[in-house]
């Protein structure tokens, strides 16, 4: 009990430490910059933090980390704006947001959708922050439970659920898209023996297709092409709703919010998987438990809430192992951790002993960043809604220019612009044939994870497959994966039902008679 009070006191004193005009000024600009980075397709949280690290060397350590955390939280939130308004996820974390966010905008509810995304993001951050503040060291050790076997299943699991959820009428197309994404990820030098797969001697392809240009192409350029092809009349209705986040939405879906927050935090802790998976798993869980399942994918407030709560809860979740074990839980958290080192801070197993105050400072930073996105979320929405009023003939060329420069910005290679164009054309064609883009992008993210962890696991066990099926977390993951596949294929489901009925009647019929 005294421990709790001590921690509360530390938290409050950390909050007090950041209420200076200077700190508030830094919070204000950095969160806004983060939202901008998130909203521009191509610029991601990881790139934003890496960039700002360079710009904040001269600041004192706590202000620099404050700025970086504000950029991180802001970027993951900012991506939802683009996802809702123009159906292009600003960062990979917001792919699930497009599923319900954009349909809502098309129904003239863009304001409400942005409000829902804001409240989801804020609450998700707060839930993650609560765990960061209370049981960080305990949760940190959970990161070590994920080893090669678990990562393999996590990758398959991610593809299967996202493939299923994005193509509900015809899941096979979602899975095809997902496996095509995995295949794309095979291009380039593989991570174990450094052999070059499918590179045809090109040095540009050694590193494979970069994720961001591929994503920007498949979502951005493909969207530009489809929008321009549609007849001119089709345009989002002018919004006719309030932009203020509604308390009623929050109260109505409180279970979804808490569940998504928990899922997001736990996914955040797992090293190497980040906001994107957090959003997908929260979304899937919300749909499974929902009373209005049929609305998912057509403009469900609950689905949007789940996706946005899930991805923002990952942020504090990913910081937990970074602080307590020096293991980053996500790619942006890895850069954040490096920045902490550069500023002479020493996160790691000893942090709770050596400088517990720092943990609470980080909690306070997340707290302020979250407040800042709430303020900007309410304040900027009216302005952002004007995007919907711009005629497509003027908006789309600018969107395409942003796609091109966004693909180029991260690594400064013109090759990546061609990758964007290529994925845009392929993405457009696949889209016309009702293949969803999100599993494709997720496949590119997860392909590497699956490849290395499967082969590494096989090396570790000398070819024995049993640990893949018997380790506790593996069991949970493969059970969900296979049941999701079987239950969504009609003939298989009927077969299963028949078999069960047969077993059932057999066990009742003759068996009973015999014993009687």
């Amino acid at each position, binding site marked *: 009990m005294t421990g709790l009070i001590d921690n509360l006191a530390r938290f409050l004193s950390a909050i007090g430490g950041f209420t200076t005009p200077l700190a508030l000024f830094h919070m204000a600009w950095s969160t806004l910059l983060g939202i901008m980075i998130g909203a521009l397709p191509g610029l991601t949280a990881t790139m934003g933090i890496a960039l700002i*690290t360079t710009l904040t060397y001269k600041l004192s350590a706590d202000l620099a980390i404050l700025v970086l955390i504000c950029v991180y939280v802001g970027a993951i939130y900012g991506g939802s704006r683009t996802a809702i308004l123009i159906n292009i996820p600003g960062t990979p974390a917001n792919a699930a947001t497009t599923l319900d966010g954009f349909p809502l905008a098309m129904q003239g509810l863009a304001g409400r959708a942005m409000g829902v995304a804001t409240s989801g993001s804020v609450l998700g951050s707060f839930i993650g922050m609560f765990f960061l503040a209370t049981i960080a060291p305990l949760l940190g050790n959970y990161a*070590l439970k994920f080893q*090669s076997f678990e990562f393999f299943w996590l990758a398959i699991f991610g593809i299967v659920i996202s493939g299923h959820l994005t193509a509900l009428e015809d899941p096979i197309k979602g899975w095809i898209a997902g496996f095509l994404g995995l295949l794309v990820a095979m291009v380039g030098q593989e991570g174990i023996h450094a052999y070059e797969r499918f590179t045809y001697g090109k040095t540009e392809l050694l590193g494979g297709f970069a994720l961001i240009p591929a994503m920007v192409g498949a979502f951005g350029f493909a969207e530009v092409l489809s929008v321009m092809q549609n007849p001119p009349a089709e345009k989002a209705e002018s919004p006719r709703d309030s932009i203020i986040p509604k308390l009623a939405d929050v109260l109505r879906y409180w279970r979804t919010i808490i569940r998504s927050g928990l899922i997001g935090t736990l996914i955040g802790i797992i090293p190497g998987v980040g906001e994107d998976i957090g959003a997908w798993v929260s979304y899937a869980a919300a749909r499974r438990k929902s009373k209005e399942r049929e609305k998912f994918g057509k403009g469900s407030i609950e689905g949007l809430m789940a996706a946005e709560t899930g991805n923002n809860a990952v942020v504090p979740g990913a910081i937990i192992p970074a602080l307590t074990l020096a293991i980053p839980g996500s790619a942006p958290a890895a850069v954040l951790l*490096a920045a902490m*080192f550069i500023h002479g801070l*020493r996160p790691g197993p000893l942090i709770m002993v050596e400088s517990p105050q720092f943990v609470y400072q980080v909690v306070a930073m997340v707290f302020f960043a979250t407040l800042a996105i709430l303020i900007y979320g309410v304040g900027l929405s009216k302005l952002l809604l004007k995007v919907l009023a711009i005629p497509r003939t003027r908006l789309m060329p600018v969107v395409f220019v942003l796609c091109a420069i966004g693909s180029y910005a991260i690594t400064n290679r013109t090759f990546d612009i061609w990758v964007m164009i290529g994925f845009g054309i392929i993405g457009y064609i696949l889209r016309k044939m009702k293949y969803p883009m999100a599993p494709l992008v997720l496949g590119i993210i997860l392909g590497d994870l699956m490849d*290395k962890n499967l082969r590494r696991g096989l090396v*570790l066990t000398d070819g024995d497959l049993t640990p893949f099926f018997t380790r506790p977390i593996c069991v949970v993951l493969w059970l969900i994966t296979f049941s999701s596949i079987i239950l969504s294929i009609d003939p298989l489901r009927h077969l299963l039902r028949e078999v069960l009925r047969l077993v059932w009647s057999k066990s009742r019929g003759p068996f009973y008679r015999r014993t009687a």
Partner: protein
Amino acid sequence: MGRKIFVTALVMAIVSLCWGLTQAQEWKPTKPIRIIVPWGAGGSTDQAVRSIVADLEEALGQKVVVVNQPGGGGAIGTKSVLDAPCDGYTWASGAVKDLGIYIITGTLNTKVQDWHIYLNSANATLVSVNPNAPIKDFAEFLDLMKKDPKKISVGIAGIPSAGHSAIEAIKRANGGDYKLVSYDGGAPAVIATVAGETMATTQLLSEQIEMIRGKKLRPLAALAPDDLIIEGFGTVPSATRWLPKVAADPIYFGIWIPKCAPKEVVETMNRVWREKVANSKSLKEFARLRGQIVAPYYGEEAFKKAWPTIVNAAWGLYDGGKAKVKPDEVGMPRP
């Protein structure tokens, strides 16, 4: 030590002589300079480069932007520096050992001699095991390598990597074998050993140091000429106690400028390195926290430091069957 001072003095004398003869002007960059880090943001190369950026900006009076271009074991980022205009505004970076062996792995046709190298820090590799591993000391580790190599799973950051060169050097000196397990980077390899997935790791000290301080890893030996003192832990014995002939050079990190860059760029950078980086407070502090050695070398001296590590790494690759070119064909005789 005396020799080092002599060499430094000589180099400085030559440099200042050249300075006087050519009367080169000071280089005043007019636009931001890009340093390409050919590895991901947050890794050990990235950290080593970023630790001196503030000093470089101050000395040059211009923004210095770090761009991460990971992939191909560093080849992709380095290639893009070679492709960029050679005007002194685009620099490469990384571990000098990697720069020297692209030609051996056949990924990139460049040699270390094609670059001006500016080293800033050095980092030792360490053999550490999971605290519960049934091995008492390095002698038992070496023994097990000979007796039951299947039991020794070693987590490293892939091929090429500092960890791979280290365990290959030990294997060459000791004999026996081990089970190689590759991870996506130094940090994940270290974490896998902490989690107990692999028994040991031979990655860089900077990647292990927090785990060692937190008693989640048990260091057995350091691949350094002398015993290594880790602040907040104690002393780690040098591997040369058991294997006198093992290649025990640290891994040098730094930035590289192509040889074709304008002369005034090189001269200004030499001066910056001598005056600014050698006395950098932030570099010293960073090195202290991350268990690194400050190594502000440039020119001939840097090359002398780097060359043996490159040759060793090259032959390590060749012996492991990972080389496309035999090292002595490109001027690296077997040590």
